[in-house]
């Protein structure tokens, strides 16, 4: 048997490796997606005061720290047994939506657009954001502008652009400044124009990728997302819902406290990333997906007009349950519009300026669970504390973990479609990496390490001899 290793996978958050096993004829027999970093946050927070958890867990990532801040703050709210003031809820959602805008913009414009607009088989030396800047500078600038818009909101409302201090247990630590509100409203129109223009562009090109759509994780799985009482998409709050591939809702209105009744966590050999599954269906039959594709599959509607119109068109085009992971890109662009519309709606309410933004309390419960949608999918923080509020135990289920089984199966499907023979082809390899990027996984890069070879692929025979190698 022969083996191909992609190590590390590029253009994702964190480090991962893909192994592709070939038989003697060069056909793919199986694949493995390994996450090779140990994070250890759950262990080293033990003994820390619970109220430090938002600040600590936000450092899990430099791209989506807001999601951890939200889930952690909500778990702390539960430990304090407080209901946070309405303005605090609105400000948190405002920051959360800004995080979706900037994170989704990074994923689409800077990580995936080079594949989509320059071509999966184009010169790898130019198939990146620099190549995009050369060929489509207006698009690269749009991506930067949209990301900056999201970051300016985060910085203006919550204090700092990457790891803001404004989201705290019990609410937020400052009311919204009317000047900041006015500044955001000024930038909202141009941001929405960029988002709509980009979605229109994508809708015009998506049919060029029918072959990839058919093989990029086009499979039956369950889908999970947060929805409101009426089944509308929710990002900051809401109940968990699971939908099956036939469109039936198989679990609904699940609040955070019930997550462990429905989600089990399997341990995989050769990977530090656990593999959550839908407990009632067991492992691995309970495979499910989260994130933009799964959220749109789970919801009945989107609660804002422009995004809902796009959602209806998307469903008319691909069906109520959209199976291909390639369509994460499409769903992500619709969600940018949704997040921008929510930002506008929140700012239109004068209640968001209310100065009462924080509830104060000590430890009133020895356990707290916080749940929110991260850009990549459902994020769960579960804490146990002692009477003094010291952390005794933590369990974090991150979005990419939920997708672990689905990413593995998607890699296998793409590999079987594109990988043949002993000689590696760049376009082949790139499609394997691209299906991982479609999920926009966040494997948590907490420090930057220089000198890494960004991409290495080895073809190794059964005796361990390297037959071929590609480097980017």
């Amino acid at each position: 048997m022969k083996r191909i290793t992609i190590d590390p996978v590029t253009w994702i958050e964190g480090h991962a490796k893909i192994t592709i096993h070939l038989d003697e004829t060069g056909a793919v027999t199986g694949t493995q997606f390994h996450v090779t970093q140990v994070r250890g946050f759950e262990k080293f927070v033990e003994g820390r005061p619970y109220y430090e958890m938002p600040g600590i867990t936000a450092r899990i990532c430099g791209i989506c720290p807001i999601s951890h801040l939200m889930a952690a703050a909500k778990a702390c709210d539960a430990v304090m047994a407080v209901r946070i003031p309405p303005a605090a809820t609105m400000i948190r959602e405002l920051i959360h939506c800004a995080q979706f805008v900037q994170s989704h913009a990074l994923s689409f414009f800077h990580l995936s657009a080079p594949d989509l607009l320059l071509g999966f088989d184009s010169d790898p030396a130019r198939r990146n954001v620099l190549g995009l800047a050369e060929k489509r500078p207006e698009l690269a600038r749009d991506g930067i502008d949209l990301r900056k818009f999201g970051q300016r909101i985060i910085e203006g409302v919550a204090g700092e652009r990457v790891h803001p201090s404004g989201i705290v247990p019990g609410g937020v630590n400052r009311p919204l400044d009317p000047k900041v509100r006015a500044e955001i409203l000024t930038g909202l129109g141009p941001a929405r124009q960029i988002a709509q223009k980009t979605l229109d562009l994508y809708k015009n090109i998506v049919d060029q990728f029918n072959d990839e759509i058919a093989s990029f994780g086009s499979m039956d799985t369950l889908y999970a997302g947060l929805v409101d009482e009426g089944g509308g998409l929710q990002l900051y709050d809401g109940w968990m819902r699971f939908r099956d591939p036939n469109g039936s809702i198989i679990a609904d209105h699940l609040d955070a406290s019930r997550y462990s009744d429905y989600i089990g966590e399997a341990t995989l050999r050769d990977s530090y990333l656990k593999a959550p599954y839908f407990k009632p269906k067991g492992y691995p039959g309970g495979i499910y997906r989260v994130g933009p594709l799964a959220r749109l599959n789970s919801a009945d509607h989107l609660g804002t007009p422009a995004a809902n119109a796009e959602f209806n068109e998307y469903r008319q085009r691909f069906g109520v349950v959209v199976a291909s992971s390639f369509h994460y890109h499409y769903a992500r662009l619709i969600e940018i519009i949704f997040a921008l519309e929510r930002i506008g709606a929140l700012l239109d309410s004068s209640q968001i300026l209310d100065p009462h933004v924080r509830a104060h309390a000590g430890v009133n419960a020895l356990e707290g669970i916080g749940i929110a949608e991260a850009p990549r999918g459902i994020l769960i923080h579960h804490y146990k504390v002692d009477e003094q509020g010291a952390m005794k135990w933590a369990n974090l289920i991150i979005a990419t973990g939920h997708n672990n089984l689905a990413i593995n199966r998607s890699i296998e499907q793409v590999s079987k479609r594109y990988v043949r023979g002993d000689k590696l082809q760049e376009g082949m390899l790139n499609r394997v990496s691209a299906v991982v990027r479609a999920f926009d996984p966040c494997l948590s890069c907490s420090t930057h390490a220089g000198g890494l070879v960004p991409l290495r692929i080895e073809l190794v025979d059964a005796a361990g001899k390297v037959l071929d190698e590609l480097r980017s």
Partner: protein
Amino acid sequence: MNSEADGLLIIGYGSSLRGDDDAGPQVARQLRRRGFSAIETHQLTPELAQEISSARVALFVDADAAVEPGRIRVGTVPDSSSSPFDHQVSPSSLVQLTRELYGRAPAALLLAIGGACYEVGAGLSTPVRRAVRGAVDGVASAARTVFDFRRR
């Protein structure tokens, strides 16, 4: 935020939880307190291109495991041998992206501080703490005397 009057933008990057990796952000923070235009960030990302496009000089400050702990090395930004955009951008890629998108780019320097310990929660080691102070004083002095940059 960058000030057009200054022309010098300091970008310190690294993880604030990873011991000496926090050297870059610490330098940026302390220089900002002294009135310089400085950005602290976890990692370099493409949108920084817009901010550095109006600077005359961009000074990147980073911890470097290849430099002796506590030593400071200043030089031009080296060409990147890695992918132009991985999960982070290198200083040279960022400068190149800036030039491509905005038609201009600043002169770029890299101030590397040798780090000793990158363990989670470790804080700055003693030699790096001293080096951070030295870097802050050195940059402030050079900015005024060598480059004739004014503070905000």
